[in-house]
């Protein structure tokens, strides 16, 4: 029972964080593609902006791993 709940918790941690990251990156990506089309020198900045929300899923993954692995 408890193992099942832990697994659900880990799944939620990764899944919800992934949804959040996806929503954010989708918007940033579309804006970024537009910006780069007009000013190609913005590539570096756009990579950064695009990569910022990734922290959410990374942290989600870390939390999930700790839920499952740390007893």
């Amino acid at each position: 029972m408890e193992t099942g709940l832990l697994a659900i918790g880990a799944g939620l941690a990764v899944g919800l964080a992934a949804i959040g990251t996806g929503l954010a990156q989708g918007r940033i990506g579309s804006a970024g593609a537009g910006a780069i089309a007009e000013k190609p020198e913005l590539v570096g900045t756009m990579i950064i902006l695009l990569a910022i929300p990734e922290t959410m899923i990374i942290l989600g993954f870390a939390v999930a791993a700790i839920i499952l692995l740390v007893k």
Partner: protein
Amino acid sequence: MIVPMSKIQIIGTRAELDATVRVLHDAGVVQIEEKPAAVDALILDARAAHQRDGITALVTRLDALLALLPVVAPTQIARRDDVDVLIGQVKAALAQLDAPAQNLARRRDDLEADRVTLPRYAKTMRQLMPLSAELALMQNYETVALLVDRKFSAVIEMVRAELPALTNDEFEMVSREVDRDTTAALLVFPRAHSTAIHTLLGRESITQVRLPDELVNVPFKEALATIQARLAAIPAEAEKIQHELHALAREWRARLAAWRAVLRDRLREIEVREKFGATEYAFVAVGWMPQKNVSALRDALARAVGENVLLDELPLTAHEREHAPVVLDNPRVARPFEFLVRLMALPRYGTIDPTPIMAIFLPIFFGMILGDVAYGALVLGGVIYFLRKPKSDGMRNLLTIMLYCALWSIAFGFVYGEFFGELGEHIGLHPYFPRGEAVVPLFAFSIAFGIVQIALGFALGIYQAIKLHQRNELLDRIAKVIALIAILAMVAASSGALPKEMFTPALALLIVGTVLLMYTLGWIGLLLAPIEILGVVGNILSYLRLAAIGLSSVYLAMVANKLAGIFGNVIIGGIVAGLFHALNLALGILSPTIQSLRLHYVEFFGKFFEGGGVEFKPFRREGIG
């Protein structure tokens, strides 16, 4: 690092102007700036202005001619410096070459146009063929072919209704649907009514099929045959023209390009003077140059021009110190990474160039994420293969960076004991640190990397703020470091690494850091300071990606191997495993690159980096491109 620059001023007698400009041009280390406002501008004399206009025109013509000639392997051409003789030569060559080259190019373009349009004619004519069989061609009669979109086919009936009145009933018109969307019609009438009928067709906006002039009064069958013959002849003719253009290019291209380079150099030598200042007997020029080259240039001027020209270093104002042009100069090993720093921005003059630090950390991060002997070796093989091929500078830089990354991947692969994932254990690779199992230590290791790099970033930031007298930045960074130390101490105290009693002093230290940050940020700091400090903690946690992305690649490799085992068939299993490993390798190259770049750009650079540097553009001779 960013090369220290000097602002220099060159003053000389006007008699030495030409010689001075030539020395500066040869040296190629000075970026000439606008003259000081206090001095009048140097006015070009009539001869120079005339030469400038002449050369500009020649360069434009050379540009046009070179655009026509295909690129061939360059041959070495001796360069001449006697510009007047050269101008004569260029003019003669242009007179000889312009017409034939343009002629060839025009014929090539015509052929290309025919190649595209003739098949369209042929298609239309094939559609009209069945109609033309019903009409005999007659002398003194004109035939008009019409194509009407099926939606508007009623217009044909309207035309038919008007024709009897216009032609006294002397006409013949047949129409039919030639395909799903088009109705075609052929109309034959005496030439005498030509104008009236064309007016009618124009008024109804009906598309007439216009044939090339030479095919207008030819029976359809013959015209179609002519078109087919012409289409068949095009490839051979195009190849012949291409061959002639290549022959022309082989003979002339290198020479023309070299001449253009010399002329452009001469043009720049004339134009640069427009930035100089002048009095009746003297001229003055100011510019930027790397400090280390100043004495060499002074010697060169003394040797070539003599004592009548003086080179002085000017003291820098605060504004000038911020806006000096930037030259990056790094050890050979680190130089490819300048490319990545520039991708972000060129650092401002006087700040720290992060290239050498990036050169150390970025490949380690990449290796730590990918961490597989086999994947690393594959990347290494690919990089070595591509490095042997000719390529652009940017590509060479990227490949060199990937080379370092691949080596670190192999090194970490031995540490993790990974060879195509956990296959390493089966072939006797002993893991010192099996990351698939030791997840929590791996997280700790990643965070440790984060703490090291963020601390380094803050240290650089504090050093830079002191050097540039930026009080606010200095306080801001110190406050964050204090808060960071406090938070680390609190974590250590609550996890037992430090004595429990340390928790309270650490909390006090955190408050000190927060208050200092609030003070630095002003009123808005009451709100922002806690967020900023949380941001620093977030920066460090962000280094978890070093572990997380790597683990996902380990698990994918594991899936590949497990899936291969399920099939129980060596060949199918091998193919499936191969596909999965290929996918994993592709992801394994792309995402570690982006992730380690991001860690540098966002987390590390954020602590000290200031972009907005101005590129150094010295006045120098052009290479023959």
